[in-house]
């Protein structure tokens, strides 16, 4: 698929301010490194088997560890993280969304507000509206969608990708974050 600013769900059009395409995934790695207070939000789809070859949760955990950033698991996803011995904070998608939109929120640890939020594994349309809420109501927060599909209300998003390209991109980000690169098999 060619790289285009084209929403996965055809009708989910954002308006004048659309997500910039992540064409070089290493830039995401650099942005995460540069961010003062990044956070990763993982939806329930992250805890499900994405396909035979992809466990999204593994990427969430690897990114969380490599970048040393807090992970919020929405819906019931936390139970999968617990099984894997990874500490994620359990919070609903709407709760974390509204907190991120509040400039006075001091974060999960009380140490201050976040400046970068990465999203993965929410239902496409739900992530779409939450990213929109953040675009409009949280001036100091940048958002990145790490899902396989272009999500136009983010600040940056992958274009619609094949599973293979998506995995490649995530591996590149992880390499940039200092993790050893793994081979991508699809």
């Amino acid at each position, binding site marked *: 698929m060619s790289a285009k600013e084209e929403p996965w769900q055809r009708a989910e059009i954002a*308006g004048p*301010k659309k997500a910039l395409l992540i064409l070089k995934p290493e830039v995401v790695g650099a942005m995460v490194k540069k961010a003062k207070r990044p956070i990763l939000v993982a939806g329930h789809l992250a805890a499900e088997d994405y396909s035979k070859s992809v466990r999204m949760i593994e990427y969430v955990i690897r990114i969380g560890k490599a970048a040393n950033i807090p992970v919020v698991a*929405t*819906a*019931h996803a936390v139970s999968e993280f617990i099984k894997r011995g990874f500490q994620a904070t359990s919070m609903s998608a*709407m709760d974390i969304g509204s907190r991120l939109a509040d400039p006075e*929120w001091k974060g999960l640890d009380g140490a201050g507000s976040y400046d970068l939020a990465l999203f993965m594994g929410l239902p496409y349309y*739900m992530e779409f509206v939450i990213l929109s*809420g953040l675009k409009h*109501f949280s001036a100091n927060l940048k958002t990145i969608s790490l899902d396989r599909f272009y999500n136009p209300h983010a600040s940056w998003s992958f274009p619609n990708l094949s599973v293979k390209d998506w995995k490649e991109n995530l591996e590149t980000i992880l390499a940039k974050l200092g993790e050893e690169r793994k081979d991508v098999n699809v």
Partner: protein
Amino acid sequence: MHLTRKGVHVKIDELKSDFGLFKNLELSVGRVAEETWTEPTGPTPFPSVTALRDWDMKLLQRYRPFYLPYCDVCCLCTFGKCDLTQDKRGACGLNMAGQQSRIVLLACCIGAATHVAHGRHLVEHLIEKYGRNSPLDIGGLNIDIEAPVTRLVCGIKPEKLRDLEDVLDYCEEQVTQLLSSTHTGQEGSNLDFESKVFHAGMVDQVGMEAADIAQISVLGFPKADPEASLTDLGFGVADVSKPTILVIGHNVPSSVGIIDYLTEKGLLGKVEVVGICCTAHDITRYSSMAKIVGPISWQLRYIRSGLADLIVVDEQCIRADTLVEAQKVKTPVIASSEKNCLGLENRTATPSEKTIADLVENKVPGVLILDSDKVGEVAVETVMKIAPKRGRFKIIPELEKIVEAAKECTECNECRRACPNDKPIPEAMKAAAKGDLNPLAEILESCVGCARCDSACPNDFPLHSFIVKAGEEKLCKEKFKMRVGRGAIQDVEIRNVGQPIVLGEIPGVIAIVGCSNYPQGGKEVAEIAEEFAKRRFIVVTSGCAAMSMAMVKDEEGKTLYEKYTGAFDAGGIVNVGSCVSNAHIAGAAIKIANIFAKRKLRANYEEIADYIHNRVGAVGLAWGAYSQKAAAIASGFWRLGVPVVVGPHGSKYRRMLLGRQDKPEDWCVLDARTGDKVYVGPAPEHLFTAAETKEEAIVLLAKMCMRPNDTSKGRAIKLTHYVDLHRRLFGSLPNDIHLFVRNNTDIPITMKDEIVKVLEEKGWQEQRIPDPTLLPRLVRERKG
């Protein structure tokens, strides 16, 4: 002197004038209402748009809007399009928060207008047929408070059909006022828009109540009967050897016309009458001969299956392409509502014989008939003649055709990208090309029947039909039992459960309502309902959700309605009826405050809502909510202080009302005994939120049943359910448990050790349990 909204009645014992002395003079202007309700009128009879604004703002301070704009622009007037991104304002000065709240208000006005107009049509129709003085009776001796919502909001006690005219006058005026505030250059504050949203919801509840009590009273629906009969439901309900009429919609008179005509002509049992959506609910409340096909998402699959020989549509939630689809299977359509004419010729004044002949000979694809008796006659006579001719013509393809088409599929993904539930149709087509239709059949389980995949496919494959065909074998065997809508809750039931609910010993009332826009199919609704019924909550239901929860059987072949009582009691699964019956759920909460707690009812909205919000552990779940009516219904509950959870698609309503458990200052109430401000924890935590998964919804519902007034025994019971469900579905103890434990006796004994450990870690401190209120005027003793 007694005032109705339209009339003034003056009674003067003695009047001296130039003309002499008059005794016992009575003057009436407009209509006179007989006064049989002696309770003094409370502070807010027939409240105007702003009469309850202070109450709304109290709720909105705690439950703040989180806006989720669909897109960055507004295009409501020709100043626009305006880009409202971030802090930009439109040409009219409106910002994004204002615009989003305005859209929510528009949705709720549409919803309220729909119910009120439905009520107006019903009341007018029933008055014409049965007279203005027909008494309102929705439960005989079991119900004194026949219209709790109307009494609370309007401050009148409706006794006859004609009294509902005043009520509907009020509703219509309010909806007009509210709608006018959405004009460009009117309201500018998002919070004021939100207060108006609440008003629309309250008016909607009144409109729904008027509609349902009118039809229950006059049409002989079950009157608050916990043992209302079981009816057949499912794709396979109709005896296909008989001519079959399918009715779709929400407003029952035309369907009643069909049953009445069949009865009059001795044809009952010779013609099948099956329904989809709320008309199906209401026609089974009217006649045991009618059956239910399923919720709104069953429309297209049933029409395309060709099983219906004739379709009668009335109003609301009917597919706009009904006529187009019906023509494909040679099924004539009768439209019967002014709100949904489908471009058809108006044959209301045409002799029936002519219309029947034209339909049978296929000279017209359908007709508009705005007279329910005539609809009955034309529908029945036409279907008897046309059924043998149609020969169940269908457009669901044969399996070979699907395999053939699948080989031509280019896997372009357009179908999947159009599917609201992101179903892997291309992969299923790939399997079908190899002769494996199981993946397509699996999609049917969670398909909402929208046919967006059909429209998207560049090869014009009728994909929804493929999916239906693949799952046909199971589908056609579908036959379940659902308890028909019982209507209101009896006063005596309220007396029995009022105390355990308010003290918390019945852990909560879970109202599972709304449409069938489910993320994973309707079975999730049945699972949620059973989880709570088993735990001895009271489960109340209505509308499409009530149907969906019937569509699952246990190993013994029993549905939930066969396993659980229909009584409003612990462990009950209580189907109140159609969309408009939702008013009885609000009514039950209101009656708890009035009958059990003896709070004044008449035009006393704030106090009753304050009572419900702080004491009645009721939560709504609209797992598949899609409509503007569902938005209005939810907003009626918000103003009463009852929280509502929607499914993930509900995030598209564009705004949540969320509490913040991390802000202790938000969770204080006044102790009505002393006037002290007391922290009570985030109970209930939200007023409106969307859950992403069934598991999340279940845990959230259990948590949101907690109320400040719970006794320690009640709180311990509620905490047991919350912690137990959290542990099972989230694999851990909740991380906010310390916010819900007020003192040591709140802690469930069986969980004592682990909870005490958490409390210690969190530096928890004991809190007192107040007599909670948000209204300073209810404080009995002021400090200082």
